[in-house]
């Protein structure tokens, strides 16, 4: 060993070089670390921002204005024969009863136009609610009951302060005389905001005060459940096959590129495909969770396949060798050893894929999901809409009352999302490990 080299030259010590640059390197390190922290903080800030924005706009929708009026429930009008049969009671003219109650409370209103305005104080859905109330408690018949009647959306907006009472009358939807009535009712304590159960139990409606999220929620539930059921096993199965078993050649390269490319296909094109294939060829009924789930499955598959493949790639080969070495079959190796290690990544794919599917509207446009469907779906083949579509439709509705309901619907969607993710996130945490 005759050659003198930096490695054996004690006069040029490493530590000097290290120390010379250490400050710079440490500064870099700190910068990098701060950048990372800032990135996370920024991300979290965005979430917080969006959440506060949504909650600030939407929380009022969980309350709904009601008007308390003494309602005369004459037996002669409701159940003249005293049969007590629900059918008879249901057929009574509750609209008339409510109108009479309004007239009785505001006897000074006589002009035909004014009366019309007065009647519009309560929702068109109020008679039905009154009917349900009477049906639930037939003892009310023959009495004069103080009943909380559902207020019209305009009244609701005034009470919630979304319509400025100080504006000139011409710029307000709620005219002066209606304002006067509201103020009188308020001073009598006959107007109150109560928890908005309708929002959670009803399907959609053109009247904001009657509009509920139940239909879309059920639609989303059926759609997403089926999507998950289809896309996760298919995605993971395809990923395992392609990553671990398929011969590595031009064909599989093509498939890989192809799957990556599918991810870049605009989601509406999947709608076109669904329209042509599922509805056109296979005759799957339009506007149903079934066809939506099929389309969304195709849409989320690339996400799940790509992330699953990345997860499989990052499992060290030595684990596979170890399993094969004791005589496990390739499939056993996959399912017993590789899959548990790759599962966190696969679940991540599922989480963001499903999140995307939950929030997607464009492909549903083509398969008839942008629809007005009042009834809450009870299965995979009932006509249905989903939450994002409902949000889209409400956001596009002229009525002011839908603004807060849109935000509230978004809150419901987010709650749905969080619940859906929670299971996956917990599962993922169980399987995460470093080696």
């Amino acid at each position, binding site marked *: 060993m005759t050659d003198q080299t930096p490695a054996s030259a004690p006069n040029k010590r490493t530590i000097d070089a290290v120390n010379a640059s250490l400050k710079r390197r440490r500064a870099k390190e700190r910068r990098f670390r701060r950048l990372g922290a800032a990135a996370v903080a920024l991300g979290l800030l965005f979430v917080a921002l969006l959440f506060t924005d949504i909650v600030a706009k939407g929380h009022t929708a969980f309350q709904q204005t009601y008007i308390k009026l003494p309602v005369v429930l004459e037996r002669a009008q409701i159940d003249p024969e005293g049969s007590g049969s629900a059918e008879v009671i249901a057929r009574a003219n509750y609209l008339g009863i409510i109108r009479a109650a309004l007239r009785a409370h505001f006897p000074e209103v006589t002009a035909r136009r004014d009366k*019309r305005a007065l009647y*519009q104080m309560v929702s*068109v*859905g109020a008679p*039905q609610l009154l009917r349900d109330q009477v049906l639930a408690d037939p003892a009310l018949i023959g009495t004069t009951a103080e009943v909380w009647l559902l207020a019209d959306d305009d009244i609701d907006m005034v009470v919630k302060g979304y*319509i*400025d009472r100080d*504006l000139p009358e*011409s*710029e*307000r*939807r709620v005219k002066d005389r209606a304002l006067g009535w509201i103020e009188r009712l308020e001073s009598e304590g006959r107007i109150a905001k109560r928890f908005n159960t309708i929002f959670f139990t009803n399907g959609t*409606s*053109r*009247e904001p005060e009657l509009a509920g999220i139940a239909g879309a929620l059920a639609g989303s539930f059926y759609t997403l459940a089926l999507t998950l059921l289809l896309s996760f096993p298919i995605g993971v199965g395809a990923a395992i096959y392609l990553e671990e078993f398929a011969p590595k050649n031009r064909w599989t390269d093509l498939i890989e590129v192809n799957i990556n490319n599918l991810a870049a296909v605009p989601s509406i094109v999947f709608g076109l495909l669904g329209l042509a294939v599922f509805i056109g060829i296979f005759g799957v009924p*339009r*506007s149903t969770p079934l066809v939506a789930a099929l389309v969304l499955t195709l849409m989320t598959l690339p996400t799940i396949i790509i992330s699953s493949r990345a997860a499989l790639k990052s499992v060290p080969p030595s684990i596979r060798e170890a399993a094969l070495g004791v005589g496990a079959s390739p499939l056993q190796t996959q399912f017993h050893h590789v899959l548990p290690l790759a599962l966190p990544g696969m679940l991540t794919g599922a989480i963001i894929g499903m999140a995307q599917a939950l929030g997607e509207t464009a492909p549903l446009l083509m398969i*008839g999901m*942008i*629809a*007005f*469907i*009042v*009834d809450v779906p009870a299965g995979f083949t009932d*006509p249905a809409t989903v939450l994002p579509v409902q949000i889209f*439709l409400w*956001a*596009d*509705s*002229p*009525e*002011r009352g839908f*603004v807060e309901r849109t935000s509230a619907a978004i809150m419901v969607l987010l709650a749905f999302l969080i619940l859906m993710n929670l299971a996956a996130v917990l599962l993922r945490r169980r399987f995460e490990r470093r080696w």
Partner: protein
Amino acid sequence: RDSIYIVGSSTVFPFSTAVAETFGRNTDFATPKVESTGSGGGLKLFCAGVGVDHPDITNASRRMKASEFERCQEAGVEDITEVKIGYDGIALANSREAEQFDLSLRDIWLALAKDVPNEAGELIPNPYQTWNEVNRDLPEVAIEVLGPPPTSGTRDAFVELAMEGGCKTYDFIKAMKKEDKSRYKAVCHGIREDGAYVEAGENDNLIVQKLVANPDAIGIFGFSFLDQNADQVQGSKVDGVEPTFESIADGDYPVSRSLFFYVKNAHVGTIPGIEEFVAEFTGEQAWGPEGYLVDKGLIPLPDAMRAEVASAAQSFAPMSRP
């Protein structure tokens, strides 16, 4: 299938759904399913054939085209009832914080056209940057108009009614119509693409919000949104007429179009409830001047016309080729 299946225009959608809901509430029939597919998309589905899988009714924010009628005939959808339900005013509005505009159709055209005539009567690329350059009486505000994109039916209507209307006021252009129709079209229908006209999406609420945020801008959208947001935006006068129920219903307000729905007669009597639905829609309690559709922003037809259309509709008189 035991419920009515309706497709079609997004403009008619709010009215159609309101009727559907009331119909579902007040009768024992199932609530119809209403899809918003756009007028063209709806007619395509509608004309695909007779049968349970095909829609019974389609809404349209324009009349059915001859080619669409042909397509229907070919597919065996022979008898179709056309029902004109009312008008949709197209409002030009801006924020309440700004001055109300009083525009003529010519102002609108000059402000938004791609090419405009100069003093010499030659067409030059639109040089106007502010409203008062177009018309000295207008405020000195940069021209910024948020309007529908070329793909939308509202844009078609706006171009045809407002732009062409303004354009025609120049005689030499009007004369062009006979000589060189395509050039006439290009001149009257071309909308400038230098940023003064902003193609906004079809979400009218968003346009309203944008107007509130930007008081210098004018937005183009359906009358119902103006009606609902009267505290935030004001409609510009067009040719001296403010967009109101009355002015649109009377036909004084120049920028309004008719709305329709079409019924497949072959389905009447087999799909339960179609007759009743049409009766509900064409009943006074719905589309009359005091009906609930007016609350939703529909501009009703004149009284005489309503009666006539209603009786034609309820007897399902088939339309002739448009």
